[in-house]
């Protein structure tokens, strides 16, 4: 049995109707971006369009559809990804539904997510991939979650959910953050022992160790895929070994964006507006130096002091971020947003797979204010002209590099 790379379509559901002078007039697209900019008339049918694009990905044979949770921003209009997942569970029949992930510290009780995910797993007939995330800066500001305690809260919530899915109830949970007398959620998930669990991380050793200890899948939430991505894979592999485990490609996923056109020039011409809307507007407040970055930094002090010291030692606050790109060449350097012909996109992605050996590729096709027809064209070209080659070549690569894989029935390795 061969094990090709798993290809997912990720939709962020950006707000596409910002005024043309947004970047000039507003200092952020996050947290405090004024919601009077929401245009109710223009936004009619927007969710339908986005849901239909994801359903189209399922028709095209993508291995799954990816959703995530954001609040109070123009970057992602899914305060509740579970609502979209519910819609997809009824509109699609095949692909995985990946929620990456629900932000657990924002919940009054994580059991709510245990329940909703179990519902979704039943509603989709066992297609849910259960992502959990702690949230970062924006959520601490939006929901008043203290950064410094959010990590402890998060891991207690993850463990409570996993236990609620696997251990017969009712049982009591004597946790610090979520003490409960009667844990006994109905329904239980379809997948046994429970849906695969994915956890995003951005190279924090602490996070990788917690993932490794529990045998979960690591999603690298980085927006650049140069040498660091291979470095992260090696770091994770080493930590897995320290925990008596072994790395294989389906223990890890990455995010990237792609636009596939007929030729490089046509792809660039078609994608230009959406890509730059995404970079300049959606990333303002997140991955742009212009404005105030609210996702990481000293005002969001969730990482332990030792790790912050390392970050200070090895980072340069003046270096450009993804959203600071001014040209296609700048973008090429990040290897995160790949725009070109099918050959170009295939070659660039295969380079990443060859050096990073990662089995779950989560690809954003709709960027910023990209029109529906362009997003669909790009997805179709990818599915027809790129995916088959990627699957064949990655299966050869993974088979060669990870001979143990052949003995495994399914690439779903996360417990």
């Amino acid at each position, binding site marked *: 049995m061969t094990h090709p790379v798993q290809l997912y379509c990720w939709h962020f559901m950006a707000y596409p109707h910002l005024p043309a002078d947004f970047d000039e007039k507003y*200092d952020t697209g996050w947290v405090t971006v004024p919601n009077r900019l929401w245009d109710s008339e223009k936004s009619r049918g927007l969710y339908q369009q986005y849901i239909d694009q994801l359903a189209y990905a399922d028709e095209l044979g993508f291995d799954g559809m990816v959703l995530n949770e954001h609040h109070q921003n123009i970057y992602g209009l899914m305060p509740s990804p579970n609502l979209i997942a519910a819609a997809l569970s009824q509109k699609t029949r095949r692909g995985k539904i990946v929620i990456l992930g629900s932000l657990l510290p924002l919940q009054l009780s994580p059991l709510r997510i245990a329940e909703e995910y179990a519902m979704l797993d039943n509603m989709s007939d066992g297609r849910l991939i259960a992502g959990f995330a702690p949230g970062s*800066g924006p959520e*601490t*500001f939006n929901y*008043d*979650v*203290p*950064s*410094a*305690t959010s990590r402890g809260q998060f891991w207690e919530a993850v463990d409570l959910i996993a236990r609620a899915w696997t251990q017969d109830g009712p049982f009591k949970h004597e946790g*610090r953050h979520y003490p409960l007398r009667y844990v006994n959620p109905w329904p239980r998930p379809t997948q046994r022992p429970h849906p695969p669990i994915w956890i995003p991380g951005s190279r924090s050793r602490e996070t990788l160790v917690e993932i490794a200890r529990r045998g979960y899948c690591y999603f690298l939430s980085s927006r650049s895929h140069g040498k660091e991505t291979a470095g992260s894979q090696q770091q994770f592999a080493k930590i897995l070994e320290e925990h008596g485990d072994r790395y294989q490609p389906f223990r890890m996923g990455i995010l990237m964006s792609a636009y596939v056109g007929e030729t490089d020039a046509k792809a660039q011409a078609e994608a230009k507006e959406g890509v730059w809307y995404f970079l300049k507007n959606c990333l303002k407040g997140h991955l742009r*130096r*212009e*404005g*105030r*970055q*609210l996702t990481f*930094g*000293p*005002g*969001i*002090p969730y990482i332990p*002091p030792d790790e*912050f*010291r390392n970050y*200070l*030692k090895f980072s*340069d*606050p*003046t270096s450009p*971020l993804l959203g600071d790109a001014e040209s296609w060449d700048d973008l090429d350097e990040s290897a995160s947003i790949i725009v070109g012909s099918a050959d170009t996109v295939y070659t660039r992605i295969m380079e990443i797979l060859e050096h990073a050996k990662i089995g779950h590729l989560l690809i954003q096709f709709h960027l910023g204010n990209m029109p529906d027809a362009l997003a669909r064209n790009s997805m179709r070209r990818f599915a027809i002209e790129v995916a088959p080659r990627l699957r064949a070549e990655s299966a050869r690569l993974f088979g060669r590099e990870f001979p143990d894989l052949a003995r495994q029935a399914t690439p779903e390795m996360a417990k």
Partner: protein
Amino acid sequence: MNILDVRNRRVAVLEAGAGAPLVYLHGFADVHGVVGDFQPFHRRLAQNARVIAPAHPGCAGSDELDRCGIDDVTFHYLEVLDALGLTRFDLVGHCVGGWIAAELAVRHPEQVARLMLIGACGLFVPDEPIGDVFMHAQPERGTDLTTLRALLFADPKTPASLRFFPDGRGDLDEEMRRYQTLRFGSFVGFKPPYFYNRALRERLHRARMPALVVAGEHDHMIPRAHGDAYAAGLPGASDLKIVAGAGHAAPLEQPEATADLLDAFLRETGARSEPLQSAPTAGRSAP
């Protein structure tokens, strides 16, 4: 810097001067908050007292607390004071340190001889929100901390403000002290946003020792109404005293003027003032 062992937790303590003990609880733009040693303001206090300045849990060389809400921190300081053998002392708190000082004073008024608050947070005052130090600690354009300096100082361009919160990457140890103090602030004061205990205002009546409430003229972090509320709520306090020309970081910005206010208060109230007589309880409980 001494490291004190408090029930197996390390607590970093700076000390200077001789005489009656004066405990100093620091703020953000302060000793332990940014710099490793006493500044001119603290040295002025040390001319007439034995100044003892512990670093908050997780700050400078102090260990983080396993649980670190305001009640935990208050109890932590009771243990620190036990370990120092201090049963009665003068207490000065600046910024978040002022909040902790007030919490100590309402719980153990018998231990606090005199209470001095400088730009103290801790109270909930409707429609007078405390500034968002967390958001402003996120630099603009990756390196620009102008708005953080504007929050903590009268003017973001003064040498003192630029010295304590420079743009870009500063000295590594100072960056770490800033980060650790923000992290302590996140533990103790992020929720509810920010830096107050709703119950504290109704408890101030218990702190009947002589008290001094001070604020910088241009404190952009703690609205003036908070100083007024402390002055009105503490039975031993007179009106709020203003340090002209200073912002939130009055001890750094106007060390002499701020120290003059404290000196005058300490002189007026005698070397070791006794607590005010308790109000007759019969009067309060009479039907």
